[in-house]
């Protein structure tokens, strides 16, 4: 039983279409939304772009109008950081748009989708992880340097529960380490859950074509 021996029978069987679609059915399908991973990625990118714009507007507002010097500097800096991230998101969105409007050979298509998703996952992870120490150190430093003495919340909390400066530093150190570990594993798990399996399956197909 060779493939060539059964070729015509197989093709004949495959040609027996169970239900034929009418032109009206096909026309109706063009109005629906796609379920592809690329489309889902496009949607998440749009959501992130919208969130980024909201953050930029809010951060810029606080950066311009806050009474505290430290808050002004902190939020102005993160307005710029968000603007850079917005450009990265827009660049990825443009690449995805170009991809969905072309019909490339299968291998190139797989490689392109794989590289876009991999880049997205990598950048999201880097961005999240980089923000933790930057935010922490930057906010502590700004809080320490702020000439105004109106921000009492942290000081009050720490002095009520931690009597010596060593205890305060220990508390902050442990807090930073735990937060970093938590965010590290959560981000890894979240991105793997969203795109990890898909990336792996794409890689398997690419490897198979490269064999």
């Amino acid at each position, binding site marked *: *039983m060779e493939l060539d021996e059964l070729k015509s029978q197989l093709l004949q069987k495959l040609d027996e*279409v169970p239900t034929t679609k009418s032109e009206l059915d096909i026309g109706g399908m063009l109005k629906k939304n796609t379920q*592809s991973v690329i489309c889902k990625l496009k949607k998440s990118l749009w959501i992130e772009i919208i969130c980024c714009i909201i953050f930029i507007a809010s951060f810029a507002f606080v950066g311009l109008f806050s009474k505290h010097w430290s808050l002004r500097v902190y939020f102005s800096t993160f307005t710029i950081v968000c603007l850079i991230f917005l450009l990265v998101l827009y660049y990825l969105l443009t690449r995805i748009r170009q991809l969905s*409007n072309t019909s*490339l050979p299968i291998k190139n298509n797989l490689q392109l989708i794989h590289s876009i998703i991999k880049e997205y996952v990598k950048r999201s992870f880097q961005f999240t992880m980089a923000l933790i120490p930057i935010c922490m150190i930057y906010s502590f430093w700004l809080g320490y340097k702020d000439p105004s003495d109106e921000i009492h919340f942290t000081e009050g909390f720490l002095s009520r529960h931690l009597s010596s400066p060593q205890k305060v530093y220990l508390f902050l150190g442990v807090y930073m380490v735990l937060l970093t570990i938590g965010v590290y594993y959560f981000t890894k798990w979240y991105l793997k859950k969203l795109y990890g399996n898909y990336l792996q399956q794409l890689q398997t197909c690419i490897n198979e074509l490269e064999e």
Partner: protein
Amino acid sequence: MPNEQEFIQLLNKHQNIIHKVCSIYMDTTADREDLFQEVTLQAWKAYPSFRGDAKFSTWLYRVALNTAITFFRKEKKQVPTFSTEIFPDTTDYHNPIEEQVKAMYKAIGDLSKIDKALVMLYLEDYNYNIIGEMLGISPNNVAVKLNRIKVKLKENTQKHYQFS
């Protein structure tokens, strides 16, 4: 702006290509319907890039296979691809050719997504150059892969045939 009516007519004329790809790649009617929908949409989005230098059928095959290969569902219990609509249960009589085709079809269902694409294009009598162009690999590579697939299919068909 692409002509929607022209596209619908072309797709309607060549819809059997999408049906074939859906039958090979999906197990259930619902999944096949979803994939059909997805291929139609992807073809519509990519239609402006169709310049007519290739046949519409070849272009549609490329779009359909690209969509089917990159169309991943949430992990379900893996059932080999086997369409009961294509092979209804015929217990009243025993037709050896029918049984062999059925066994071969089951064996094709066990192949990887890439191998299924190769078999599909081979069944449609595309030459190695066109298959290579569609997949993005060399014609020699196509020949090597097809030989491997044929050996694999022969073994697996035998197993399925004995089992049935």
